[in-house]
């Protein structure tokens, strides 16, 4: 396969897997959530390697995401003589900072879910109050904690545990969104 053809295949796979949606939020892509780390060729061009970053090591959706990404990649490179390798990497570490601003807005609007990141305080997705009170690190999924809005008196799901951004200070922003 020529270098140009290979670059085309990698680009097609990147486009395709970028559109894979999260099982928990079926309108939000894994690229927007910062789960997609990168797509590249390896083994002298015989393999297209897709790196994913798990939100939490114990996330039960990891296998579903890997399967959906594999399917999308296979479809995108149908006919090309390459194998697909989908792998979860431990480095970098996922943080809510990797979520794209557009997805933060969507999650607030459509799911009433807030996002806690270093770049923005988590504000109440229902009334906009930005003084949420921490209630529990452990919510309906491992990556979501529970807070309370004293203004509109609603419990609020927040993506990210309270010290996650600080604990993961060194993590870079997702290159998939760069």
């Amino acid at each position: 396969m020529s270098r140009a053809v290979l670059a085309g295949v990698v680009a097609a796979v990147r486009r395709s897997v970028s559109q894979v949606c999260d099982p928990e939020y079926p309108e939000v892509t894994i690229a927007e959530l910062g789960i997609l780390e990168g797509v590249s060729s390896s083994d002298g061009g015989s393999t297209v390697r897709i790196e994913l970053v798990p939100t939490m090591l114990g996330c039960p959706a990891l296998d579903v995401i890997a399967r959906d990404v594999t399917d999308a990649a296979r479809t995108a490179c149908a006919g090309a003589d390459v194998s697909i390798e989908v792998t979860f990497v431990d480095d970098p570490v996922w943080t809510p900072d990797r979520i794209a601003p557009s997805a933060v807005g969507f999650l607030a609007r459509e799911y009433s879910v807030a996002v806690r990141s270093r770049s923005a305080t988590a504000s109440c997705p229902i009334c906009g109050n930005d003084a949420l009170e921490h209630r529990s690190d452990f919510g309906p999924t491992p990556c979501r904690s529970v807070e309370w809005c004293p203004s509109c008196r609603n419990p609020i799901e927040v993506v990210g545990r309270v010290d996650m951004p600080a604990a993961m200070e060194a993590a870079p922003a997702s290159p998939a969104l760069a």
Partner: protein
Amino acid sequence: MTDSAPEVMDGAREMVLALADDELCIGQNLAWWIAVGPFLEEDLALTSISQDELGHARALYGLLGDDVDALAYARQPHEYRSAHLTELPCRDWGETLVRHFLYDTAETVRWAALADSSWEALGAVARRALAEERSHLRHATGLLSRLLRTEAGRSQLLPLFDQFTPMACELFELPPGCAADDLVAAGIMARPLSDQRAEWQAAVDEAVASAGYQPQWPADSAIPASASGRAGQRSAHFAALHAEMVEVLSIDPTAVW
């Protein structure tokens, strides 16, 4: 991968297997609280922690081979290396809390000693897991410190420290054939296990000192080497735990989640 000598790497793999088996057993045990936690937030907390620990087990088994399920479920009992503390069933919430505190305090120390490992993949898992451990530890210490301010909490929880601390010392032991000194010399583990155990004991001492209590620390593990989980001896609780883990697989080996 590190370029350490093959026999050192064999020892490192034995250590990782022991850590993974600890995570698997305690993760599976904590899942017992699904839907029966003493209050809703606690139900979610313990079962989220269970999921995290199982995720850590998966990541560690993944360092040892591609077939993670085979490593987790298809070994013979004597091939597991779990510490006996992690095999204890959850039935009483106070017992669960004290054990969770002892275990997650120990884990935080153990992961920190591996975070800069010369085995790069192990270091990456350790840094990843350490970030998740903070919330586990905050959960355990938060509840413990509040309960120890009450007479009922002190009278029910402090005797459990006497019961569990000797057994918990096994968390800082390695399987036979795994030379801790070599692992430190090769940079796979940053500090000797005796240092790590001392740091853990100090953290446990500090947590209960406000209740006027001092745990009795044995010089060595309360479990003799010949009966040690690290050496392949399973506690009386393991058979039931393992049967529960493989219940579906034993009915249908091709079952997928």
